[in-house]
């Protein structure tokens, strides 16, 4: 099978000059388009978690993001919860590193407690949703080997296989990356039996300040059932967010102006 795909790709490469782009390039561009547009960004997010029973739970939060340098590497995130009321003012903060484990903090206002969250891997749930923490912060392009398996009029189709199979629950994933924007519009995760058990879909893309931006996305998971939808509003780029905000001091005293 693999051989056949390779020869198919090789055949395409001979006939179509478009395939001169290599898998690694696509991945890097997709990574940039998804997580590194502008120097910083802000968005209000409404997350709707729907379970197998069709019951929904809604979480509202605001995300602030600031890149550290231009290398599509380190970033800082500040996620401020607005609702439901009993988790309002909870803050989730991340210092994403170029290499090595990210630093993550959680501020729980009702306990007045700042806690660092350590996890063996980044594939833990993002606050109870079907998205993993890694889906929100971005998976490092170096963690998988990528293979360009197909090119259609609109999409590059990539097959990515983890280098460390123990650190991920999937065997591989297939992403459909939009040629014009380099935004992944669908990512299908497969298990060792070759079953597609988890799927990401970009539901809506708007161009904001010239940056094509996913403003609605869904993650569904057959294993646990149900899906989560995130819809983004009030998306802003290059606001000049102060780096000092992404610190422990601001966990207890949220930056009003930036969160407005």
């Amino acid at each position, binding site marked *: 099978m693999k051989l056949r795909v390779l020869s198919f790709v090789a055949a395409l490469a001979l006939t179509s000059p478009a395939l001169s782009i290599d898998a690694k390039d696509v991945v890097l561009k997709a990574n940039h388009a998804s997580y590194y547009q502008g120097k910083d960004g802000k968005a209000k997010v409404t997350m709707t978690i729907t379970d197998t029973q069709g019951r929904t739970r809604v979480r509202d939060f605001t995300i602030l993001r600031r890149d550290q340098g231009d290398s599509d590497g380190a970033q800082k995130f500040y996620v401020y919860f607005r609702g439901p*009321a*009993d988790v309002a003012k909870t803050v989730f903060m991340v210092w994403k590193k170029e290499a090595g484990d990210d630093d993550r903090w*959680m501020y729980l206002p009702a*306990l007045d407690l700042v*806690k660092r969250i350590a996890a063996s891997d980044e594939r833990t*749930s993002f606050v109870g949703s079907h998205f993993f*923490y890694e889906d929100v912060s971005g998976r490092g392009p170096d963690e998988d080997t990528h293979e360009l398996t197909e090119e259609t009029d609109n999409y590059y189709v990539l097959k990515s296989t983890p280098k460390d199979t123990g650190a991920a629950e999937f065997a591989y994933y297939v992403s459909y990356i939009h040629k014009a924007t380099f935004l992944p519009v669908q990512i299908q995760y497969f298990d060792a039996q070759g079953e597609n058990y988890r799927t990401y879909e970009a539901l809506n893309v708007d161009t904001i300040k010239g940056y094509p931006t996913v403003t609605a996305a869904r993650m569904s998971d057959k294993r646990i059932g149900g899906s989560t939808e995130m819809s983004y509003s009030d998306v802003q780029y290059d606001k000049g967010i102060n780096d000092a905000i992404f610190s422990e001091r601001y966990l207890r005293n949220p930056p009003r102006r930036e969160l407005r």
Partner: protein
Amino acid sequence: MLVISEHAARRPKLWFWFASLLSLLLIAAVAVPSLAPETAPSFLRPLSIDTDPENMLSPDEPVRVFHNEKKAAFGLYDMVVVGVVNETNPNGVFNQQSLSDVYNLTRYIKSLDLTPDSSKRGVITADIIAPSTVDNIEQAGLGAVSFNWLMPDAPKSDADAKAIATKAARIPLFDNTLVSGDRKALALYIPIASKDLSYSLAKSIQTEVAKYTSGNRYYITGLPVAQDQFGVEMFVQMAISAPMAMLLIFALMWWFFRNLKLIVAPMIVAMIAVILTMGLLVITGHTVHIMSSMIPIFIMPIAVLDAVHILSDFFDKYRETGDRAKTVRVVMDELSAPMLYTTLTTCAGFASLAFTPIPPVQVFGVFVAIGVFLAWLLTITLVPAYIMLMKESSLEGFGFVENAGEEQSPLARFLKKMGGFTFARAKLVIFITILVSVGAVYGINRIEINDNPVKWFSKDHPIRQADKALNERFAGTYMAYLTLASQDKMVGAPSDIVSSLSPDAQAVLKGADTSSFKAMRQALIAAQDTAESDALWDALDEAVLKIDTATQTSETFKRPDVLAYMEKLQKFLLETGLVGKSNALPDVVKTVYRELYQGADENYRIPETSAAVAQTLLTYESSHRPQDLWHFVTPDFRETNMWLQLKSGDNRDMKALVEAVDTFVAQNPAPVALSHNWFGLTYINVIWQEKMVTGMLEAFAGSFVIVLLLMTALFRSFWWGLLAMLPLTVTIAVIYGLIGFVGKDYDMPVAVLSALSLGLAVDYAIHFLARSRQLAIRYGSWHNTVGHVFGEPARAIARNVIVIGVGFLPLLAAPLVPYQTVGVFISAILVLAGAVTLLLLPSLITVFSTHLFPKSNGE
């Protein structure tokens, strides 16, 4: 002699052709859709097995509807439990090799595809509880909490392996559930989409672990496995035990009648009756349930019974006439009435089960009744037809060779003496019967109503051994679920909140719509957009939050006082001694809270506010398995589910638990109005059992009256009718008294036996009394008659008792307890009913002969 018997005797071949064709037709109608479903016409139904005790209740039964609703609401599935034990290693399974095997086994189970059809799900992999599939919450250095897989990889050393036990034991949800109390054994919990997958899952696991070499022992248990396994063994049972019983009956008949060709007749009758009944059962779309699987075992003795009467009579009379046709005529004349009535009474007894509220019991009753009726029809046609078809020569030497000689046979001599004894010592016999009956009533009062599907297997069965091994080491393998639902909305009127808001917010809401929280919220958010200062924006934000908080007060199970109440209930559950462990929402909250506060034991408690509870749970939701939370509470936090692990699946214990919780709830009012309810298989078993006990009692009372009326009609005398009821009454009393004394639980097979007693015990009485009356007319007084009654009629009854009583003893070799029970009790009922008929009835006739034979002078 009935017209139909007459016809059969004249056209024997026609009747055999007819019966054989009908049997073949039904066999084909069952075999074709079962074996080659694609070629079968759609109106034919394949044979389908149903071992689900849930089906003891009809699908629309409220308790079942609730069970299914709650299973869905809390995302629960039936579970197969795999216990892993290592008795050779001092650390049990917590060594490098053993855990590597467990790691591989878990991977294997996750990869299993139990359903070839991709639309159906097999193992619910996301919910497997195994070391490599659950999260360990623990401290990770200063100020950090970590969520890691408890066993992300196969351990590299024995020390790593031991550490896993220590970590798991620290998490209350895993302690005594995943890891045993002594930290030496593991239990994996494998949820499956449907119970009928459990057997193939168990088989796959057995094949896989056979490859492992670490010396682990694997015990597979859980109610679904037991039920599925039962279904498989039920087939084996039907295929082996029933024919074995048949064979033994055959051998005994041969010993009595010494004519192989002749005794084939009852066998044919029984066989055809069973084939026709089971065929009808399947083609009418009924499933073969544990109850209906017993239909053949019930039909066989009853079918053979009448044929044995005919043969016995024929055997004794053949020499008198030496003419086959004449003898058949005489015999059939004598026996048609009693045979018809015994059939009617038996049918009435079983058909009465149709009025019980339990669908499988209804089906069982109706089809046994049909089978008995078919057996009667076949007996009165095929047996005479068969005799007529035999060559005269094969009857050579049949029957009483020397009249005096047969009268001297041990059985004949014994019965003669017995007859004399009942005449001479009539009052003694009656006195002893009364004494025994009083004792029986005492025994009946000691009967324990109880059942447990796992105990349907004999003690040395792997399922029972697994059950024992795991319940010794873990909190329990029987699951029951207790739900608490909030009855109180707790949300105040929207307009009430306005006065508590800040002046800025009140100013915004002045003149705005304050009839709903939603409208107020919208007004405030709209005002926020135009707010110039951050301070105003913030003030309005606070107001929105206040409104949101007000609407959230309906989330009962985030309230610390409610969680504390649950904690108290959990403590109480443990104190009852009936619950090995309870797993509930407070355990999740307390564990995460403890780890948020340095993992110190004193912080293993419920936080002080609802918001603190919510934020603790939000932290939990950042783990690998946030969905586990929804097994304990619904997303609206209005209903909670407590998972109880019981060491015993006995209905008696479950029932005691239900009562204990009722008492607790009555004595300890909750901080808010809560309703409680149960679900889970262990609980469902209690409900259907209760229905069965009362249902059987009512059915029995009803059929008792019907049979009494039939008897009165048959003998055209109330007193003779009443007399006919005595053997069955005494038999049932003594059998159930004995059950009470021995301490045998009153379970499903025992309950059904009352119908069998009614059906069989009355038969002997009918034959005995009918023949007694016939003979009394001929011989005048009872004194003169009694000797004749204890001739051929008593011999027929005694032969019947022995043939069928002994014939069912092979069921004792069965690995399934319900069949053993039925085997023992059929034998006991027959022997007892025979003895009571032959002892009590003549004694009573002796004492009350003036009453019973008003025209004669009694002597």
